[in-house]
């Protein structure tokens, strides 16, 4: 039975399994607990063998864990997905327009008073070094991960945008590969849309943003901080699935404002860099001078237009959580459309009256630092201790620009295996959007699940798990892609 007050994905309010979950539910109903446990064991063994792990920073022991995939899939029917696809495309299009406007345009959104100038200048993600550096096609968010939740009415809302280095796509693909092997029968008769073309799609998008002068066969590389980075597995995965070189900063050199990689046959020109290094480590000349992860002169090469960096430098201003609050307005401003997927209700704490209201209701709201990701620094009012609330109150008062508050969104639930049975657990969804020549939304995305009972924190770094996400094909096969 669903938990009262929350929307359950699989079961309606009268306890009946929803239509699109029926075949899967029936399939799981036939399994004994012992059979489920055996499947889990098989899954762990397979992930261990392939080294599919993630790293938890800050925890003391065994920081490498195998990837927690829950067996019960999340299913999205074709009509619902079509709406999400439109909404995500709309949002990313507007965010790309905004970023291009800020960095190489006339700052029309500022000039027209849609966003205050200081919203941009005070954002820690606003990179002055990227001003007037143009990006082919204006595709600044080449890969975006948009975190969605469903509120108690079942309505999707955007919780945050990830426009810098969104990670997790490798898990989407590995989850699917594992599920296909573990539960081939559960897929029976369901036209689940495939995700394993991601590498090709990403490569196509990256080649589309190559500098116009570089010819028909641009060289693409993936730039990683190295084997000790928590997402190294994903970096290697992406390089492999695109068939391109995985490089570190020290493999690249800038010569006459052109980037090249050092090979045994000499220097070889590089045209597009899919980087998985934060802005501040990219180039010690203009950013952190002590960074040994980056490439000296890289920003100048980008400015000279001989190389494209994706995602673009400075995207952090677009996923600043205070800017997030303005995204619906930005959609109206740039596209002249009404937003398809609404935001969660958000308060800007640098506005004195909103701040006053939030400080009154601190124990009812969720408070988030504007520039963090991965769930770090979030305080959930209803679950926080008095000491935690006092601490965050002090932090807000000391630096209100650094915080936003949101109404608690009651994340929807879906059954997850809890050791002896399936019970409802809260979930969210991070779909991945690619922008090259056009916008492409990868069907599904990463569904994260809070495995602890009642918990609303889904981040894998904080004890969350994941689920395979099935988008069902269009009822009319001819219309399916």
């Amino acid at each position: 039975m669903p938990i009262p007050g929350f929307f359950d994905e699989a079961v309606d309010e009268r306890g009946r399994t929803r239509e699109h979950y029926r075949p899967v539910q029936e399939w799981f109903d036939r399994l004994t607990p012992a059979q489920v446990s055996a499947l889990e064991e098989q899954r762990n063994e397979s992930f261990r063998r392939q080294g599919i792990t993630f790293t938890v920073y800050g925890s003391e022991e065994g920081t490498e864990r195998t990837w927690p995939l829950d067996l019960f899939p999340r299913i999205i029917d074709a009509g619902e997905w079509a709406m999400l696809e439109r909404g995500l495309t709309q949002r990313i299009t507007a965010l790309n327009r905004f970023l291009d406007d800020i960095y190489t345009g006339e700052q029309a959104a500022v000039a027209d008073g849609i966003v205050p100038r200081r919203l941009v200048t005070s954002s820690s993600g606003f990179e002055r070094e990227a001003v007037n550096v143009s990006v082919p096609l204006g595709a600044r968010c080449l890969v975006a991960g948009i975190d969605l939740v469903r509120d108690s009415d079942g309505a999707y809302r955007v919780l945050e945008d990830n426009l810098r280095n969104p990670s997790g796509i490798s898990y989407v693909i590995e989850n699917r590969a594992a599920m296909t092997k573990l539960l081939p029968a559960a897929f029976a008769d369901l036209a689940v849309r495939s995700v394993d073309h991601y590498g090709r799609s990403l490569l196509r998008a990256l080649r589309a943003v190559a500098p116009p002068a570089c010819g028909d066969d641009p060289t693409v590389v993936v730039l990683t901080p190295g084997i000790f980075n928590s997402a190294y597995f994903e970096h290697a995965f992406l390089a492999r699935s695109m068939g391109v070189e995985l490089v570190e900063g020290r493999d690249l050199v800038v010569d006459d404002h052109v980037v090249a990689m050092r090979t045994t046959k000499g220097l070889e020109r590089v045209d597009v860099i899919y980087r998985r290094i934060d802005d501040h480590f990219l180039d010690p000349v203009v950013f952190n001078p002590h960074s040994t992860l980056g490439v000296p002169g890289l920003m100048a090469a980008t400015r000279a237009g001989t190389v494209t960096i994706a995602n673009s430098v400075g995207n952090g201003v677009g996923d600043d959580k205070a800017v997030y609050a303005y995204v619906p307005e930005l959609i109206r401003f740039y596209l002249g459309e009404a937003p398809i997927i609404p935001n969660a209700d958000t308060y800007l704490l640098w506005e004195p009256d909103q701040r006053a209201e939030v400080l009154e209701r601190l124990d009812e709201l969720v408070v988030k630092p504007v520039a963090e990701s991965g769930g770090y620094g979030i305080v959930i009012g209803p679950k926080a201790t008095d000491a935690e609330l006092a601490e965050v109150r002090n932090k807000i008062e000391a630096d209100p620009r650094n915080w936003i508050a949101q109404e608690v969104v009651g994340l929807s639930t879906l059954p997850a295996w809890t050791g002896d049975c399936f019970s409802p657990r809260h979930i969210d969804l991070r779909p991945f959007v690619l922008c090259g020549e056009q916008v492409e939304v990868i069907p599904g995305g990463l569904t994260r699940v809070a495995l602890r009972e009642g918990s609303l924190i889904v981040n894998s770094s904080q004890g969350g798990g994941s689920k395979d996400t099935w988008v069902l094909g269009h009822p009319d096969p001819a219309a399916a892609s």
Partner: protein
Amino acid sequence: MLARHAEDMFWAGRYLERAEDTARMVRATLLSTVAESPTQAMRRMGNLARTLRLEAPAPGEDVQTMAEHLTSAPPMLRSPAGLVIDVQAAATRLVCSPAVAGSVVFCIGRARENFRSLRDQIPSELWEEINRFHLQLHHADFPDAMEQDPFRTLDSIRVSCQTLNGVLSTSMARGEAYRFLVLGQNLERALMTCRLLQARYLEMDGSSYDEMALTLRSVSALEAYQRAMHSSPLASDVARFLLLSEAFPRSVLFCLQLSESHVGSLAANGQPAPLRRLGQLRSGLEFADFDEMTANLPDHLRALEAGVRDAAEMVGDHFFRNAEVFTLHSQAIGPGAP
């Protein structure tokens, strides 16, 4: 291929070879000390430590070289606290101490690190095998086993090395990565044989069969030698065999020929410096007047070793020079700077 990856493969090859050579030489030396007085045995171990003297380690290493650790006559018989240790303990240290650059444990650890960074490009069987070997060496009982039953332990190391070589040659595509690895192995092997002869030649001169046998056994050449040369061994015959045999895979000539052919395939075009250098060394051996050479063998060996070392550096300069990692410095000049 990225220069960094090529360099990693080259060094993986050198470390694998070093590990195997160390194991073989320790085994041969221990065997010949069995019936000797402690003093004699210690002298032998000192000699071995000199043979294993390692050249400057890979960039960035700051570990004590084995030479510093163990060479000068009695110190290698001392424990870190300055007490005299026995032959067994000395051998155990040469094999098991992770702090001794050139010990088996050290070399396999380094080889594994090198493989790790290009895990995507090597067969997973190879990765699994080096991992297994690494774990075997890091087992808590391993140093004890080495001390209690050194021959069995050293045999198991040799088998592991051979298994790795087998996996390499049966599962790895003959691409650039493979060639750099084999090149590293062969240059290292040529160096080791040069050093062995330098350390052993005077010992063998006019001496017993046992001394000849120790030299040959150190590079697993005793049987091959006996089949090739039916006479009872003379020191100069042993030297000729280990330098000039065209059939024995650990002779210097054999290693140089193989290295030259790999560098030739790796070079994009022309005759890069390492290729020319290897060619000179190889033809110098092929056309050597051996009688003239034996008149002053130690000098010839020294020159040959220096030449091989030089060729290895040229390989680095030509193929990896670009991947050298330097420190980045920030310059900032302010107003009012004095």
